[in-house]
């Protein structure tokens, strides 16, 4: 079982052409200031399962491999106060529009891009995309970058009849989620250079069927690994990740239930408040003796109106929680699912490697003359190491994004509640002078 120390990584020389567009392009390296590898990455020999992984021909593994540098870049980009220089790709999703055709009705969104990257022909783009286009993009990203954590999309299916797919609230909630998705991808040091993303952002008509047929070798190879191997030595850090994700999912589930319960209680409270507002209709207005009740009439109306205002403020609060809070919470649960899937894939890749290594060692025993490690074992080792590195740096970035996202979510929730109470406070404060008002007519007659 390997220790959790960051390992040296196999060279990336085997990567295909497409993957050369990499954060460690010359100009990127200059701006990032990464010229020498930092010490903690510079392990010259790595090991998995106690077996020496350095290449049999004695070539020392490179220390300044792209993956390790990408994690460095990630760390730089994780600063909250991001200066404009490090970001050169800006995307926005907005302006939803409904399209009605004979076949179907659907919503498209405007996807606007601003960039200085050379990978793009133009500095600005504006295209229209619908949900299935986003879905296509995500699938492509998963296929071509299986070692990375791909952000989630909002839920695909909605129960017709239960939710109105064309209501303003639903469309806005979806738009926000799609915008978030795209921004997360655009901020990712590896994913943002993906060719499919480029196509998504720039081409007028996204021809999804054609697609760029060249998948990365890694993508291909990961795709074809089945879960048939048993994993023996999962590195501690990945186990820790898995455990954390399980616990975190639980917590999110509980929070979701609590939020739903609060929404329910608030709705029931609202119903009772309505009765209170309606009571003013009952006032003893019907007897002549009660004509003098007029003195209480205004204050009663004032209080009743005030309660009505508080009711509508509460209604807004409940709506905000339903529309802003719960969807983001649920999106994270989906995110966690996709991260766990990637962890599983990693496990499978490692398991395959272990199995092949064992088989090779067995063969070596039988034919001691063979000195070469079989090529496919090398490939597996390569795969495992790349995967681990990518995953680890993505994990750090994921954790940091998660912290920011939840900070934003929870402060948002606090804000909604503060605004609710502020509105109620204003309503009640405005009613006090009305209640304290001495009848103006009386004072006037006294002065006469």
């Amino acid at each position, binding site marked *: 079982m390997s220790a959790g120390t960051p390992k040296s990584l196999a060279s990336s020389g085997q990567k295909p052409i497409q993957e050369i567009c990499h954060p460690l392009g010359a100009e990127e390296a200059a701006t990032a200031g990464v010229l020498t590898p930092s010490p903690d990455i510079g392990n010259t020999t790595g090991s998995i399962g106690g077996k020496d992984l350095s290449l049999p021909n004695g070539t020392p593994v490179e220390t300044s491999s792209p993956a390790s540098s990408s994690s460095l870049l990630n760390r730089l980009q994780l600063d909250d106060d991001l200066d404009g220089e490090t970001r050169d790709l800006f995307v926005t999703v907005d302006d939803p529009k409904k399209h009605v055709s004979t076949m179907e009705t659907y919503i498209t969104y405007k996807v606007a891009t601003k960039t200085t990257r050379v990978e793009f022909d133009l500095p600005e783009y504006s295209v229209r995309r619908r949900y299935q286009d986003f879905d296509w993009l995500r699938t492509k990203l998963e296929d071509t970058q299986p070692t990375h954590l791909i952000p989630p999309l909002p839920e695909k299916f909605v129960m017709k009849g239960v939710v109105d797919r064309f209501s303003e609230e639903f469309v806005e909630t979806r738009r926000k989620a799609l915008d978030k998705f795209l921004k997360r991808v655009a901020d990712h040091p590896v994913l943002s250079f993906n060719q499919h993303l480029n196509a998504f952002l720039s081409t007028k008509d996204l021809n999804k069927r054609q697609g760029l047929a060249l998948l990365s070798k890694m993508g291909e190879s990961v795709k074809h690994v089945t879960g048939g191997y048993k994993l023996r030595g999962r590195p501690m850090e990945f186990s820790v990740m898995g455990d954390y994700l399980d616990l975190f999912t639980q917590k999110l589930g509980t929070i979701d239930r609590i939020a739903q319960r609060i929404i329910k209680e608030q709705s029931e409270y609202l119903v009772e408040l309505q009765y209170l507002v309606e009571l003013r209709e009952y006032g003893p207005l019907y007897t002549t003796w009660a004509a003098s009740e007029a003195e209480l009439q205004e*204050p009663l109306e004032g209080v009743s109106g005030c309660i009505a205002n508080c009711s509508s403020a509460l209604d807004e609060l409940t709506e905000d929680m339903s529309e802003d809070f719960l969807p983001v919470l649920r999106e994270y649960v989906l995110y966690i699912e996709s991260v766990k899937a990637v962890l599983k894939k990693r496990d499978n890749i490692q398991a395959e490697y272990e199995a092949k290594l064992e088989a090779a060692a067995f063969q070596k025993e039988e034919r001691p003359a063979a000195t070469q490690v079989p090529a496919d074992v090398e490939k597996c080792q390569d795969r495992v190491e790349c995967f681990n590195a990518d995953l680890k740096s993505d994990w750090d970035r994921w954790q940091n994004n998660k912290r920011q996202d939840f900070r934003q979510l929870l402060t948002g929730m606090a804000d909604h509640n503060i605004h609710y*109470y502020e509105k109620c*406070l204003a309503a009640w404060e405005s009613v006090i002078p009305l209640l304290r008002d001495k009848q103006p007519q009386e004072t006037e007659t006294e002065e006469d």
Partner: protein
Amino acid sequence: MMAVSGPEEIAVIGNTDLTSAELENNIKNTMVEIEKGTSLLRKMEISVGEAEKRTGKNTVNMLEIYTVYLIETRPVDAVTEGITPAPDSLWRRYSEFELLRNYLLVTYPFVVVAPLPEKRAEIVWHKLSADNMDPDFVERRRVGLENFLLRVASHPVLCNDKIFYIFLTEEKGWKEMVYETGFQAKADSRLKAMNAAFRVKNPDKRFTELKHYSDELQTVVSQLLRVRARVADRLYGVYKVHGNYGRIFSEWSAIEKEMGDGLQSAGHHMDAYAASVDDILEEEEHYADQLKEYLFYTEALRAVCRKHELTQFELEMAAQDLASKKQQKEELVTGTVRTFSLKGMTSKLFGQETAEQREAKLQVLAQQIEEGEETVKEKNTESDEFVKTAWVDIERFKDQKDRDLKEALISYAIMQISRCKKGIQLWTNAKECFNKM
């Protein structure tokens, strides 16, 4: 919690104006030393301090536990001289308050007598117990009893009552004094009369309207109280569920590194938020008590209306009786029988009376008519006086009610403002913690 009228606003009901037999008792019970028409409160401070539990044997010789309340009084002058002497005090239980009130009701039927707080807790939202021994209930009852005493002490007529004064100042022997007034007998007959079915031909229209008004007021206030209790119930639920956030944030912080502290402290604020509702609702309960007082006041209003009907009925009966006597006399004199009467029938059957018999009868009738006219005059005066004095007190009550209900609304608004400010504070604290995540 109630607006006490100052001396200048008290209607002067000079006892010298009242001549009817009904009110003669008042003159006997009036303290000669106290200036007529002045509120007792100008002379003394009254408060109901604590409550204590006592055990004793009740009327059927069974052991019972009951609560007694400490009544403290102190002359106003003593305080103004800078020295605050210890107040005089005595203990009274709820049943004694009831006795006092019944005495006042019977003795001053034209007064809208302030109600007592509930004997048993009713119309409560679920969290409050309906247990009479519950300390919160006992406390609220203490406040209610004090309020009752202050109401009576500030009433222009009731404040002069001797029995009331002794209730406040002498623990022993008070009960005997009350019974000695003989009010019990009057109470019984009055109770019988009030419950009897009778129809009044010409009630004063204002009283009919007042009765309708009090019915409507009762309906509205009891509905209001019911809805408020349900609203309180729901509000409680909303606040308490937020306490779950406290727990989950604490659990969650255990699996986080950087976010942990922020989450943990935010969780504490969520706990504080959930806990804050207890005080809020307890305060609201006092507001509900103010409304309840007016709910019970409607009974007092109806009692006054009923008394008017009774008086009016007696007047009508007396007038009817007189009219019938006059008619009998006329028939006897003229010899014609207009209306069917047993006398007429028997005289037809058995022959006319002798002249002497007729003369005797005429004399009796003349006497009865004279007495009847006196009675009618008395009853008329009684009725007029009652209407006059009752209406003065009703106007007083109306002004008091308007003031009090307005004050209650203001208190409620202030309570809501305080609740909103607290909510803002707690959520702002939580937000600061979230920002540190």
